[in-house]
């Protein structure tokens, strides 16, 4: 295995473009090194991105937030403004692994690992997050939901990599939340995950995005679930419609972590609970 | 002679008896005589047995004394974790 630590994204793109065999990018390494160690994916070329300038930065401008590819979960949790504006995204990231994992794991890593159960992905999708993809032809911007292509796969081409993540400005009357179901209190992979992000006009939901993880080959943006609550004050009828829409969107598998029946049912339960938290947060954010 | 209580699974090797009368002043003699009188029990004795004498379970000690009125139970050998 070759190890590279380029000083710029251009250099990283060039190494990746010209690499033979399997290429992996190293930021936090919490998935890449597990796969390397277990002989699941042994890269021929490993490109460490942490020596590139500004990859450790969390910044805000008029467009919203820009989060560098090497920013760890712990650094996000320790950022009070980011946490205030996007508590759901920060919590989702914070749920991944242990304190030790938080010291290394990154949003981009979580996204590019391609796991349908990645905790931060439904939260980012709900938040309307986008990424900048660097490549030979220059940068392009993609929605987070357009990155995963299936378990362990992304839509990035050879020689392409994500160079930054963007969250929109929070704006008034908005709130987000992420919940996952795991059997223990910590350290598990999500059996179901649900991200919710909404905006209120008075007490009524005016905008909403609901996303589910671990219930299909990729994280889902569930428009029917959002439509079930838009224009409502989360009355029982709306909440039940939300749960049904969330469960209906599921296309899960039976595996060691959960059954189809369990995942489908719990997706509805979590959707209601996550939306309720997002709603309460939105009400507090005026 | 000592009355020896076997576990029920051994019955088929003692002609259906669950209690047998065996000579022996200690566990070693008792087990030797048990095999002498009931040769089919040999593999089970060889595999290891514990003997409870008056409620005290002896896992290894063949020298432990047995009195004619002792309560004697044969048990499968104890192991632990």
């Amino acid at each position: 295995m070759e190890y590279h630590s380029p000083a710029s994204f251009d250099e990283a793109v060039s190494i990746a473009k010209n690499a033979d065999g399997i290429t992996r990018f190293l930021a936090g390494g919490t998935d890449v090194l597990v796969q390397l160690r277990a002989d699941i994916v042994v890269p021929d070329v490993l490109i460490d991105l942490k020596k590139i300038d500004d990859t450790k930065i969390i910044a805000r401008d008029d467009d919203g937030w820009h989060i560098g590819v090497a920013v760890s979960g712990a650094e996000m949790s320790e950022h009070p403004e980011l946490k205030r504006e996007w508590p759901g995204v920060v919590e989702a990231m914070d749920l991944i692994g242990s304190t030790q994992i938080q010291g290394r794991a990154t949003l981009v890593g979580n996204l590019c690992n391609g796991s349908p159960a990645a905790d931060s992905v439904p939260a980012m999708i709900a938040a309307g997050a986008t990424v900048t993809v660097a490549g030979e032809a220059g940068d392009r911007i993609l929605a987070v939901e357009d990155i995963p292509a299936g378990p362990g796969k992304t839509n990035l081409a050879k020689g392409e990599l994500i160079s930054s993540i963007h969250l929109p400005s929070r704006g008034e009357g908005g709130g987000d939340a992420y919940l996952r179901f795991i059997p223990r209190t910590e350290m598990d992979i999500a059996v179901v995950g649900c991200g919710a992000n909404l905006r209120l006009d008075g007490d009524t939901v005016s905008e909403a995005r609901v996303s589910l993880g671990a219930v299909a080959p990729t994280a889902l943006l569930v428009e029917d679930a959002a439509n079930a609550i838009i224009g409502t004050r989360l009355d029982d009828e709306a909440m039940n419609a939300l749960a049904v829409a969330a469960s209906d969107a599921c296309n899960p598998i039976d595996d060691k972590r959960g059954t189809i029946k369990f995942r489908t049912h719990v997706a509805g339960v979590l959707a209601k609970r996550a939306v309720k938290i997002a709603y309460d947060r939105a009400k507090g954010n005026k | 002679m000592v009355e020896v209580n076997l576990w029920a699974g051994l019955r088929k090797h003692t002609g259906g008896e669950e209690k047998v009368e065996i000579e022996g002043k200690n566990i070693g003699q008792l087990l030797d005589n048990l095999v002498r009188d009931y040769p089919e029990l040999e593999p089970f004795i060889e595999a290891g047995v514990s003997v409870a004498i008056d409620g005290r379970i002896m896992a290894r000690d063949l020298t432990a004394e047995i009195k004619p009125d002792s309560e004697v139970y044969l048990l499968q050998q104890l192991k632990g974790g």
Partner: protein
Amino acid sequence: MSMIHVRTTVNGDPQEFLCDPRETMLDVLRDRLALTGAKEGCGTGDCGACSITVDDRLVCSCLMLGAEADGKEISTIEGMADGEELHPLQAKFIEYAALQCGICTPGILVATKALLEKNPDPTETEVRYWLAGNLCRCTGYDKIIRAVMDTAAEMREDA
């Protein structure tokens, strides 16, 4: 296979080593630097027995490459006591019988030291969640949590 030349600092000591790109920081600590206090319990970041700090950030050394240590400040369990003076957590773990077999102990001590430096007054729940990535199979965690809480209280009084 070409080796990588790394310069780093471990427990305040300058260290230089060559390593294979596939070697983890844990491999390097144990096999090249003879610091065997960090243990490999899983190799997948699930048990925390290999916990160290890198530039004061708590991480699993099994999920970091040796090559990544270049220019970093590494701290391990071997650097926790100050000469013959044990860190208060170390002393309290002995006093409270907060270890049985002791294999998880180095990782738990490194992790709790990092916690108390960040949060000198944690709640029991905060200690439990902070340590969720440090598996202990012997103690049921009870005496560990008590030792951490009481050390924190004593350190606050002494501060």
